[in-house]
């Protein structure tokens, strides 16, 4: 079964500090995509960063970067220089074929 596991229901980080959100997934596929989505209180789903499984290089998007370990099926998100606007629910997600499977999310609090 294809599953995505986020083991941290909630996390807090001091403003300007760095935080890492963890994610593991289970799949037998070799070709797939991984994402991190941000869901602020408005509940809109905003794509933060994506990673193609066939690429070894970790994706980076400004202050957001991932640590993709394909053999371990691990896909963590690092947020550097945390800002108050980063406070949200973060979902790790996996896409194969045209279906996205989401984890249960990690609620990130930013402490001023």
């Amino acid at each position, binding site marked *: 079964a294809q599953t995505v596991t986020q083991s941290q229901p909630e996390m807090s980080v001091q403003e300007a500090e760095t935080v890492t959100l963890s994610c593991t997934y289970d799949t037998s596929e070799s070709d797939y995509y991984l994402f991190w989505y941000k869901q602020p209180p408005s509940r*809109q*789903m905003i794509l933060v960063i994506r990673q193609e499984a066939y690429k070894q290089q970790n994706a980076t998007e400004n202050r957001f970067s991932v640590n993709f370990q394909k053999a371990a099926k691990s896909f963590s998100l690092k947020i550097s220089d945390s800002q108050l606007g980063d406070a949200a629910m973060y979902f790790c997600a996996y896409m194969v074929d*045209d279906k*996205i499977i989401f984890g*249960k999310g990690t609620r990130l609090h930013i402490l001023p």
Partner: protein
Amino acid sequence: EPEVTQTPSHQVTQMGQEVILRCVPISNHLYFYWYRQILGQKVEFLVSFYNNEISEKSEIFDDQFSVERPDGSNFTLKIRSTKLEDSAMYFCASSAEAPSWGQMYEQYFGPGTRLTVT
């Protein structure tokens, strides 16, 4: 920048009533999706739609659900006889293509419709 829109933003309906949720995908997109998020839970795939047909559906998408692209712009989700447990946020998404080897086409999500069944 083009975006997916959804109406209404919030719909309240009584149990047993039919409800139609509307989405306008990005204009040149060919693949359409519905997802559901029950409050406090994860987002779940419901159905994908291409070329006027359902491509894939989840176990959640039973006979009470249907999708339609009634014209060139709208994509709708109908729930025939709503239940209390249908209360959720419903997200529409669209992509230009379906992913294939070496190519990924991002799914763009709409802002969601919050459905409350009383």
